[in-house]
């Protein structure tokens, strides 16, 4: 790796990290480095300074907080995967995390880093969006909470301000009756999702009571398939579900790249949404 020159600071405390970032608007936060370092290597990014938040205790660990799970921004994908509370109460996060790249990346890459990077092809943004997680951020002014629906602003752009550090994400425990599935379509095991669908479905008396669907790589940000969610409410499993899922791409603006053109991505969103709903509803 031969990046352009930059300064490096390993923050000793969250306060110090925030100060470093506030003092230099071209500074970037270095978490696990799995997205930032390739950008540096390809000289697509020229940060003046990297503020390494790797050793800040406030950002680490996965915590059971009763009605929600708090995942520290610096928890690695591997820690998340091995967390009992994530597997028990947020299995959708575990499912999606298991599809992230490969073991080497999952041991270095972090939950918060991949969310703050705001790559719409990343798997976790759609999941946190569907679960309606809450982002906790810290700046010199203090701490604030950002709902998932407001966090993903644009392609590679989050709601975090220049002097702000993501501390972690609060994920509500949805409780009994919910089923989950992350359906990822990608060409090789290590490639990003061409399209991914994160689904959480609550059933009561056989019918779908509520469905939440997050779409990966169907636009510059992760998006909810609201039309389908609305249509599914109260629906019995069967052909109607398939028909409802035909609207999965409504309102999306999927990208065109070497792996897929927009019309194909729209088609995939329909097929994969149906599959995700069936799995999440427990009747594939």
């Amino acid at each position: 790796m031969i990046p352009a020159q930059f300064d490096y600071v390993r923050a000793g405390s969250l306060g110090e990290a925030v100060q470093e970032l506030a003092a230099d608007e071209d500074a970037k936060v270095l978490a696990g480095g799995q997205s930032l370092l390739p950008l540096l290597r390809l000289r697509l990014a020229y940060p003046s300074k990297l503020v390494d938040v790797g050793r800040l205790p406030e950002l680490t660990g996965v915590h059971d907080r009763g009605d929600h799970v708090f995942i520290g921004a610096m928890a690695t994908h591997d820690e998340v995967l091995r967390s009992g509370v994530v597997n028990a109460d947020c299995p959708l996060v575990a499912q999606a995390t298991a599809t992230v790249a490969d073991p080497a990346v999952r041991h270095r890459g972090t939950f918060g880093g991949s969310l703050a990077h705001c790559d719409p092809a990343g798997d976790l943004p759609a999941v946190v969006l569907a679960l309606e997680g809450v982002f906790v951020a810290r700046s010199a002014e203090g701490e604030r909470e950002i709902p998932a629906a407001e966090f993903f602003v644009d392609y590679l752009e989050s709601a975090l301000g220049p002097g702000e550090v993501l501390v972690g994400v609060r994920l509500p425990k949805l409780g009994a009756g919910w089923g989950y599935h992350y359906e990822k379509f990608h060409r090789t095991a290590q490639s990003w999702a061409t399209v991914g669908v994160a689904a959480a479905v609550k059933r009561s008396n056989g019918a779908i009571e509520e469905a939440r669907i997050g779409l990966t790589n169907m636009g510059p940000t992760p998006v909810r398939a609201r039309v389908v969610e609305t249509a599914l409410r109260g629906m019995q499993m069967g052909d109607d579900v398939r028909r409802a899922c035909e609207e999965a791409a409504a309102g999306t603006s999927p990208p065109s790249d070497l792996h897929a053109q927009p019309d194909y991505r729209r088609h995939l969103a329909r097929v994969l949404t149906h599959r995700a709903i069936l799995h999440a509803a427990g009747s594939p």
Partner: protein
Amino acid sequence: MTEVGKARKRKEDRRLLTGHTQWTDNLRQPGMLHVMFLRSPMAHARITRVDVSAARDLPGVVAAFGGQDFAAEQGSLPCAWPVSEDIVIPDHPPMAVSEVRYVGEAVACVVATDHYLAADALEAIEVDYEPLPAVLDMNEALAPDSPKVHEAGNQAYTVKITSGDVEAAFRDAPVVIDRTYIQQRLIPSAMEPRAVLAGTDGDSFTLWSSTQIPHVLRVMLAVVTGIPEHKIRVIAPDVGGGFGSKLQVTAEEVLCLLLTKRLGKPVKWTESRSEGNLTVHHGRDQIQHLRLAAEADGRIRGLQVELLADMGAYLMLVTPGIPMLGASMFNAIYKMDAYEFGCTGVFTTKMPTDAYRGAGRPEATYGIERVMDELAAELRLDPLEVRRRNWIKHDEFPYTTISGLTYDSGNYEAATDKAMALFGYDKLRAEQADRRDRGDPVQLGIGVSTFTEMCGLAPSRMLGAANYGAGGWEHGSVRMLPTGKVEVITGTSPHGQGHATAWSQITADALGVPFEDITVLHGDTAIAHKGMDTYGSRSLTVGGIAVLKACDKVKDKARKLASHLLECAPDDLEFAEGVFKVKGTDSQKTIQELAYAAFTAHDLPEGVEAGLDSDATFDPENYSFPHGTHLCAVEVDTETGMAKIRSYVAVDDVGAVVNPLIVEGQIHGGIAQGVAQALYEEAVYDSEGNLLTTTMADYLLPTAMDLPDFVTDRTETPATSNPLGAKGVGEAGTIASTPAVVNAIVDALRPRGIHDIQMPCTPERIWRALR
């Protein structure tokens, strides 16, 4: 003590796997400087100005040069294979001087005290370009009004070969299959990127390079730069794969040599992966038009092949010859009365193409094996049945094919029967029928590939007849040391093939010495003083035999010495397990004792020189012809277009096997690489000639996670062209697997009226075909 045939773990692996390798990039020399190249962002442009002055002034920068600075001494990169009378070989300056013809062509360089500073300084170089039109499409390039890549036009050469009465074969033919296939452009992706280190003592030069061809490179560096050959030493240290991409004389090798000459200091260059995707020669890239005439029962009457082959912007070492390696292979294992092969080499403003694993033979095999499936479908016959009706039968060998090669041996029946049994062919056909009947969204396809290839490059006289610029022999040398240990020197240049192990096994058997007592030396022109290096599945069938011949010479000498010391006639000695014994007595000498006696030279017979060592070369009389039957089952999800390999059976006949583990490894890797062409890999240029696939996120390579367990087995029909009976294995898997996979995908989709999917068969392409 039979070593040949034993599944020995490779003696190289401990070092390779534990980080004790000497990759070129690991090497350090006192005072070493780092080189980086500025590369053209334009596919085609006139260079109007290169200003390196700002870069030269930066801290740590020792020198910076543009193409003009090398113009007087850099020569032209060589093309060693002018395949036709009409060939146009354009000047190919290692660093562009006045015009660039592909994105990535070097236009300037920086030499600095470390590579960070060199990379920073590159950004300070100013180059002005006057854009010229890119030439990207082969058909358009051949149009009279097309912009030109070179002054002489866009046609590099034309070749036409005819055998038999083609017109008669097609006249009134009951069946004619007419298909056009695209062999997409591929990027060879060796694990170790290229690297070069050049040093000088002021008078002579040493060049370390991650190359497959230290010997060829040395000759060519002398020719290109004018530095006398005896002043150049080339060393290929550990080399992490090549797949043909390091069978090249590269601009960077020449320029690093010139830089060390100019600066008097060692200079090193290591490419990044993205730089490599742009500037390592590419592979394949042909448009293949095939017409096959057949009888109503499926017997082939004749075959016509017309190729357009993308040369890229220049002709590199064997660029024009690559399609010609397929010229005699389209007829494959089949009998026919007439054959015509035509090829037009075309210049485009892209990276030049050249050898990539299989080199011409995968392309040919793909074309014919795809068309054989089409013939079967047309006649509603099982694809294996159509092949059976056409292939050369076991009792017909040796057989001279329509394209003029004489296949010495083969047993297509045995390989196919074995593969069908392992695959469960009939059961899978039944499942396929069932899924079709049920309208299952996941359809099953079965792909067949009964391939052969020509290996063991190559008989020198045949290369001469093909106007190739060198011979095809190989050199081996064996020396017994005073203590009875053995050094083997080979002219082959392994870069992952395991020659140190295999050559030790051959030598251990031939001399009756322990495997552990043998060291194999290679890859340094000062140690292995002659050789033709490693490519084209040639190392064992040519280089291994040279080692065997050298062992025979050592043994002959040892026998003379033993007969002298034991006071008997040479014929009275029997040799077994390293011991010469006077028949019917206890009187004997071990080969180690004889090595010591030859070393002390106290008592040598008349006319015998000191030392127990020898040199030998081997020049094969014929190519060798590995073959095999590969069967592939693919599940195609018709809702998403995703094709997934469910099972894969490969039965290969590579003749006699020296080390089954190495053979297994070659077959596995080869299949993976062929599958990659079928499903994943494609070098994509945009409409302005920019390469879009410069990272592994865009240029997809499968990993173990994407591939099924391969079931592999062998039949063993020895080659008659060499004393081991070996045929070569380095490319077999790659050649066989690509058509097997695509045939399976098309087989799954055929009821939907689909008879081709363009490679790579991406889910999107399959989905579009299904719509």
